[in-house]
Every structure is written in structure tokens, then in C-alpha cells.
């Protein structure tokens, strides 16, 4: 009984009420002036095409480089070699030209560790933004026999990247593996937490309540298991609709995540909303503070 009470106390101490709300930003273009990033930390940039990193690093910014762990496209220098190794699985219908990769193959892990990640970090990025692991997890869900081992491979990749490089890691979604990789990552990103974009109809939409709440459950569970984890959200909406932007920011902040809202094409710099109405409590554990 005492143990249960202590457990409840532990849970109450780790509720997300103390989440700090410094603005962060994600931008995959290269035209925005470096001064535009002054208010933000961390900053997630495309690792191939981006504004100069040195001025950002001089300002002690944490700059994470994009790394697609589960897909490749012809724009990638390594596309042909991955294709030649017969590691491509199928084309992404939402992003034509982008192909899922058989991440179970040791060649892919080795290529990431020996080539792709050193290439990103040698530019000066202070960490990595791991994207698209949901693609691999979904393949195994859709065809457990054919794609057996995709989830295990995803977990292994995150473990290995953390172990080999020891850099700051933000992981996008992949909620199912959070219990296994929570110690390896610093930040969890909930992309399309409240809103999303429909590629066929080309329209932004609010996610069904059940999907939103399921995601919050996953995030809050992870937060309790891994108190060091900082949770971010990335929602998409038409930048002209300022009222909806305010609403999304308010909803995400109410759920104690650090929000950013943008257009679906992240090559456009959309300034974040500043939480003037939110008291900015200092949190000594918040590693992303400038």
C-alpha cells in the first residue's frame, strides 16, 4: 500500500505542469536570415540546405540536423547505392519520389553510422532530428510476416545512434517505441498532434478527438517514464488563418507541450507565436534553453 502511495506521489511530481514554453522552430529552407532565428531554441534545419550554422552556433543555439531514418529520395546522394543494394521497399504516396527503406538490413545502419550521420554532424549540427520511423513501424503493422523485425530494427537504430555519437536527439513520433528508446533521446516531437494536412484533398484538418487524446496518452506516459524528456508539437495549418494559429498554440500549451505551427511545406519560414501570456518559469532540466 505504501509502495502504491509512493508511486502515486511520483506520478503527481512528474505531471507536465512545469513544462517550460520557450519557442522552437523547424525550417527546411535556406533563405531565412540568421537573425530570424534569434528567439528560437532548439532549431531544426534541413541538413543539406540550410542557413549558415556558424552564426547560430556562436549564439549558443542548439541546431538539430534532419535525418530521415526510414526513407530516401533521389535528392539524396546515397539513393542509387541504397537502390543498388535492393533496400528500397515502396514509394510514399504522400511524397512521390520518396521510398521506404528496409531498415533491418545491416548495410543501412552501417551506412548511417559511417557516412550519413558524420556528414551531418561535421557541418556543425549539435544534434539530430530523427524522422519517419513511423514508416517502418507501419510496415510491420500492415504485414507482420513480411516486415517482421522492422520495429526491433527501429529501436536498434536509435540505440546505436545515441551510443555512437552521444549527441542531442529529437525523435519524431514513433510513439510505440518510446518505452524502449526514451533513455536514448532528449526530445520527443508530436508531429500533427492536434491538426494535420490531407495530401489528397490538399486541406488542413483538425484530427479526430480520439486520435489527439491517444497521442497525449502516449506522450504523458513517456513523460512519466522518462522525466528528462521534453515534448514538442508540430502542427500544420494555413499561415493566413491567424485565429486558428492562436487556437492551436493555446491548445498545445494547455497540454504542456512546446508548440510550433507551420505550413505543410516547411521550406517557408513561419514565425512562431511567443507565449507572452505564459510565465516563463526557469527549468534547470530544460536542455534546450539558449
Amino acid at each position: 500500500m505504501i509502495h502504491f502511495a509512493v508511486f502515486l506521489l511520483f506520478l503527481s511530481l512528474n505531471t507536465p505542469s512545469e513544462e517550460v514554453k520557450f519557442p522552437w522552430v523547424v525550417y527546411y529552407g535556406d533563405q531565412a536570415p540568421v537573425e530570424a532565428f534569434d528567439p528560437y531554441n532548439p532549431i531544426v534545419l534541413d541538413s543539406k540546405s540550410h542557413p549558415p550554422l556558424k552564426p547560430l552556433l556562436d549564439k549558443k543555439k542548439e541546431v538539430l540536423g534532419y535525418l530521415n531514418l526510414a526513407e530516401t529520395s533521389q535528392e539524396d546522394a546515397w539513393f542509387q547505392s541504397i537502390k543498388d543494394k535492393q533496400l528500397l521497399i515502396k514509394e510514399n504516396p504522400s511524397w512521390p519520389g520518396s521510398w521506404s527503406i528496409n531498415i533491418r538490413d545491416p548495410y543501412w545502419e552501417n551506412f548511417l553510422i559511417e557516412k550519413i550521420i558524420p556528414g551531418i554532424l561535421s557541418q556543425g549540427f549539435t544534434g539530430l532530428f530523427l524522422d519517419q520511423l513511423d514508416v517502418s513501424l507501419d510496415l510491420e503493422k500492415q504485414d507482420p510476416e513480411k516486415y517482421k523485425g522492422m520495429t526491433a530494427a527501429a529501436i536498434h537504430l536509435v540505440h546505436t545512434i545515441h551510443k555512437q555519437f552521444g549527441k542531442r536527439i529529437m525523435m519524431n513520433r514513433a510513439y510505440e517505441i518510446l518505452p524502449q528508446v526514451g533513455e536514448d533521446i532528449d526530445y520527443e516531437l508530436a508531429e500533427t498532434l492536434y491538426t494535420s494536412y490531407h495530401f489528397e484533398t490538399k486541406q488542413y484538418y483538425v484530427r479526430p478527438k480520439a486520435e489527439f487524446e491517444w497521442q497525449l496518452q502516449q506522450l504523458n506516459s513517456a513523460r512519466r517514464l522518462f522525466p528528462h524528456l521534453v515534448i514538442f508539437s508540430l502542427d500544420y495549418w494555413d499561415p493566413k488563418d491567424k485565429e486558428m494559429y492562436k487556437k492551436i498554440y493555446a491548445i498545445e500549451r494547455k497540454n504542456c507541450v512546446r508548440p510550433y505551427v507551420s505550413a505543410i511545406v516547411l521550406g517557408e519560414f513561419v514565425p512562431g507565436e511567443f507565449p507572452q501570456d505564459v510565465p516563463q518559469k526557469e527549468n534547470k532540466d530544460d536542455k534546450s534553453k539558449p
Partner: protein
Amino acid sequence: MTKANLNSLLIVDDDSDILAIAKYGLQKLANINIKYCHSGEEAILEALAHKPDLILLDVTMPEMDGITVFHVIKLLPTLSNTPVIFLTGRVQKEELNHYAKLGIFDVIIKPFDPLTFSDAILQLWDKFQMHGAAF
């Protein structure tokens, strides 16, 4: 014991970006003859032709990887004593033990800092002069 100067260096990596960073980092070593190769096969031919004092070898390359190149070099009488340093991102304890067992002189961890790259190479060369053995 008289220490020999490092006069020539061969760097092998199939990634042009990594070679560009290496070139940038090695600007300080103006007195050293540095050759750059993009593949294992090219590296073996270059090494046979010019017999470099030191070889920096990428581990993961298409066609012929760094470990295969290393084995070939060790079989060639004119190159078998040339120290080889691996350029690699895989530096867990078991991986380092594996390289040591192969007879690799040392490793430089990827990504390397171009600002300290030349100093790291000169330090490893000094270490080879002093000990001449695997790490």
C-alpha cells in the same frame, strides 16, 4: 631514436564531402605530400605508386571496403609496414578491439573536427614513431 618526419599521406574516402573537410583541415600541413582517393581500388594503386608514410582509410566504401583494402596492403611487401588509421564512426569498445586485432594502428572518429584534424594526424604519427604498434 631518430624520429622521421611525416612526408606523405594518403587519405581514402568515397564521400567527397568528407574529403573536402579533410582537405580544409589539412591546409596547415603544407610541407606534406597529401594524396586523396575515392575508392579502395584507387587507394591500393596510389599506395603502390607513391608509398605514403601514413594511410587514413575510410571503413565503409562500396565495392572494396576499408578492411579489405587494409588486408591487401598488409599482403604487399612494400606497404606491409605502413601504418593505417581507420576513419570511422563505429568506435564502441568491441569495435575498437576488432580493429586492434586486425592490426590497425589507430582510429580517427567521424565526424572529425577540421580545426584539429592536422594536429591529430601529427600526434598519431609521433605515436607511431615512439611505439610503432597498434593502439
